Each structure stands twice: as C-alpha cells, then as structure tokens.
C-alpha cells in the first residue's frame, strides 16, 4: 500500500499529509507532556518498557504466529479453509479476551466479593467454542469445494505471484 512493498520508488502522499502530521504531532506532544507531568502515577520508564514489550510481543510472537496459522489454513482443502479459519479466529479472540480470568488474580484482590468475575470462564469458553467448531465442521462437510479451491486445481490455492503487484 505504501508502494514500498512492491518496489515502487517512493510512496505518494496527499496534500493533507503534512497538516495531519503536524496536528498529530501536537496531540502526541500534549499526551507526552501529560504522561511526563504525572510521572509519579504514569511511571514513564515502566510505561516505555510496557509499550516496547507490547510491540515486541506482537511483532515477534503474535504476528508470526498469525502468519503461520494463515499459511497452514491456506494449505487446507478448499471446503475446509474458510470454516477452519473462521473457527480459529473466533477461538483466538475469545480465548484472548478471557485469558485474564484464568491468568490473573482478579478474585484474590477482594476475597468474599462474589461480584468479581462471577462466571465460570472455562464453561464460557466451551459455550462459545463448541458451537463455533460445530458450525465450522458442518459448513465444511455440507459444502462443495469453494471456488478458490477449484482455482488451485486441487486441494490448495495457487500461489498468486502477480496478484499483489497489481495494486
């Protein structure tokens, strides 16, 4: 999209870029000023470590894992590809957002407060994931191969070598 990925010399920017960049810079400066100005609450050094860690964990672990999962799903036969990808995506999302219930110590912060994390989160996961995978299996077994599957002439999609350069 920037043009850099496909080897074009220099990405094009609209007339609005520099005004937007200037405005964004001002807003960022305001945020940075506030963050540093409330250092006893925001602990800028720790904040920066957490920000860097979030980026590194995403870029070095999450993103490669998603790419690998995407690649593996791409190798499935046409009829399984979309349903499995859908079920995987739903599963990953649901597991991710309930992870703090399993990993964290929320209930321990106030022993005796039945309002905190009142759900049985293992059961919750089962409630969402079982139907998701059931639907996926049903969709895959009841459907013929997708057009994309036929496009590849067999089980896996054709590598679209030129497909990404057109844009």
């Amino acid at each position, binding site marked *: 999209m920037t043009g850099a990925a496909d080897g074009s010399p220099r990405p094009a920017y609209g007339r609005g870029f520099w005004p937007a960049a200037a405005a964004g810079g001002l807003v960022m400066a305001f945020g940075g000023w506030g963050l540093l100005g409330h250092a006893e609450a925001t602990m800028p050094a720790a904040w920066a470590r957490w920000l860097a860690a979030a980026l590194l964990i995403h870029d070095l672990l999450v993103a490669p894992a998603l790419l690998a999962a995407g690649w593996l799903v791409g190798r499935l036969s046409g009829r399984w590809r979309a349903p499995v990808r859908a079920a995987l995506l739903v599963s990953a999302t649901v597991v991710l957002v309930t992870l703090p219930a399993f990993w964290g110590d929320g209930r321990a912060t106030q022993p*005796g407060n039945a309002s905190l994390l009142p759900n049985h989160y293992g059961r*919750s996961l089962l409630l969402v994931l079982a139907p998701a995978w059931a639907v996926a299996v049903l969709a895959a077994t009841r459907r013929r191969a997708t057009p994309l599957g036929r496009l590849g002439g067999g089980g896996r999609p054709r590598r679209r070598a030129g497909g990404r350069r057109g844009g």
Partner: protein
Amino acid sequence: MTGGSPAQHPRATAALGVALGVAFTVCFVTGLISDLIQEPRAWLTWPARPRDLYRWTQGAHLVSGIVSIPLLLAKLFTVSRKLWVWPPARGLAHAVERLALVPLVGGSLLLLLTGLLNVFYWYPFPFSFTTTHYWTAWITVGALLVHLGAKLPVARAALRGPAAAASAGPDALAQDRRRFLATVGVAAGIVGVSYLGSIVSPLRALAVLAPRRSDAGPQGLPVNKTAADVEVVEAARDPAYRLQVIGAVDRPLHLGLAELRARANREADLPIACVEGWSVGARWRGVPVRALLAEAGAGPFTQVVVRSLQRQGPYAGSVLNRPHAMDPDTLLALDLNGAPLHLDHGFPVRLIAPNNPGVMQTKWVRSLEVR
C-alpha cells in the same frame, strides 16, 4: 514471503481500518467524557439529565474497546509483512509515517491490554491505570492523526476509487477476503454482544465472557468494593452513626438512622453505571439531597462535597455539582429494591444520583458539606 492470503490485501486493510477508526473514535470520546465528569473542568457542568447518559457513554466505551481487540489484531495481520520492508524509509514523509507507527501500534496495544486487564481486576503493571490510560490515549490519537493523513487517501482508493475494482482480484479471492472480514466481524460481535450483556439487563445471560454480570451481588446488584475491603464495617454499624450536613448552611444537621428513615419519602429508578462499563437499573428509596439542603438552610452554593465513612482511597468522597444536588431524584438511599441497603451497597446510606458515574455514587455517606 511471497503471496500471502487474500486477507492481506489493501481492501481488507482499508475495511478494517474504517471499522477500527469508528471504534477508536467512540472509545476516545467516551473516555474523555468519563474523565471530564470525574475531574470536573470549569467550562463544563455535567448535567443530571438524561438519567442514563453516562450509562450509555461508558457502556459504549467498554464495547468499542473490547471489539477493537480482534479488529486491531486482524488489521495488523493484514499488513504484518510490511513491517520488514527494506529500506525502512523512502523519503521524509515515509519516515514520519512509519515512526508514528511506534506510538500508534504500541499505544493501541497498551490501551487495549491495560483496559482489558483493568476490567478483570488484574494489575501486573506498576503504573496507575486511570492516569496512564488517559495520557496514552492522547499519544495514540495523535499518532492516529498522522496515520490518517498518510492512509486516508490510500484507503479511499482501495475501497472506492477507479483502481479499486481492478485491484480487487479475481472473484474467488474477493469472496475469500469478504469471508475473512465477515469472520473478524463475527468474532468482534461475539465479544461485543457478551460485554453488552453486562450493560443491557435483558441480555444479561449473554455476559458469559465479561468480568461482570449485572445481577451478581447482594440484592441482585454488583458490588465494586465491599465494606470489609475498605474497613468501614464497624463505623457503618455503629449505633452512634450520624449523618452530618455542614458547611455553608444556617442550621447544620446531625441525623441518626431513625431520623433519616423518617425523611426517606422518595423513590427513584436509577442505574448504577460503573466506570468499568457494567451497569444495572434499580429502585432506590431515600432522602432527597435537595430536601436536606433546604432543611439545613443552604445558601446559594456551587457544590456539595459527599464524604464517606471510608477514610482512604480516591473514592472516599465525591462532589455533587449544582444540577446533580438539586435534582429531585438525587437521594441518600436507605432502601434498594424494597429492602434495606446491604452493608456492601453502602448501609446506612449511600448517594444515588441520575447520570452519575458509579465511583461517584459514594457509599457509607458520613457527611454532606455545602460549599
């Protein structure tokens, strides 16, 4: 890495970008509103009506935040191969755009992560959640402006321009991409609806993934802090308890429980709307704050400071602005849903006011100071 899945196409990125842009805007604006109410500014008097306004703004904050998690990860997935482009920058504008990705992506990840951990009462980070979340939001939104300056034309071209149709690829690829986007939508929808269940009472049963159920607690109402946790059990049960109405008044009041009970003549249906997003309506019975102020002979005041028996912590008190103090439904409540207040809901009396964040509905009220 060659090829890539049909999901890694500018059209998918642009579509997710639009969805994420809407979600982030809602989240940012509602977050600012919540901050403005809790840290009042001279130029804004938060109104007491409509009654449920804060309930919806803060509910929108929670839902837009939680759906942003799958949207953000999906969007990053569609562009992840660009992270390793070489050379890293072609020209000044490109360098600025890419540098802004550090606060944009880092800030977004940090906001969503700390927001999620906060609603689950898990604090593995050393900094204060509220203050850091607030300032990180400004940094992230600033970076988002830079990003929009670079990408808005690109996204528009990918979705609508004449080149859009040509770049869409064969029908099969477009269809696969649509399926991917639909799946991201379904995943976001599942978590979004589940969190909506902790806000909209008829959807309560769907709140299986959320850290709160709007009916889990004594008297069918959630409790944020128990009396034991803030060490007010003894003071709240003390027979010598007196509510004090003091400050700029002609006749300071010192009222015991029986005297308060004798004045508890008003019922109101008002929600508890927590800053953490959950909310639930209830029927309260108590003494109108307005009536107490009149009885004490309060002059022309600007605010009423409400103090709790709870001596410490940021929520040991709150401030009622004039519209809130004068609203007929603003009560010092003694009863909840027809029964005396549970100790964890603020016995002997708690504040309940329309369109007021939960943390400002002070429990175990000790005094009202008119200023």
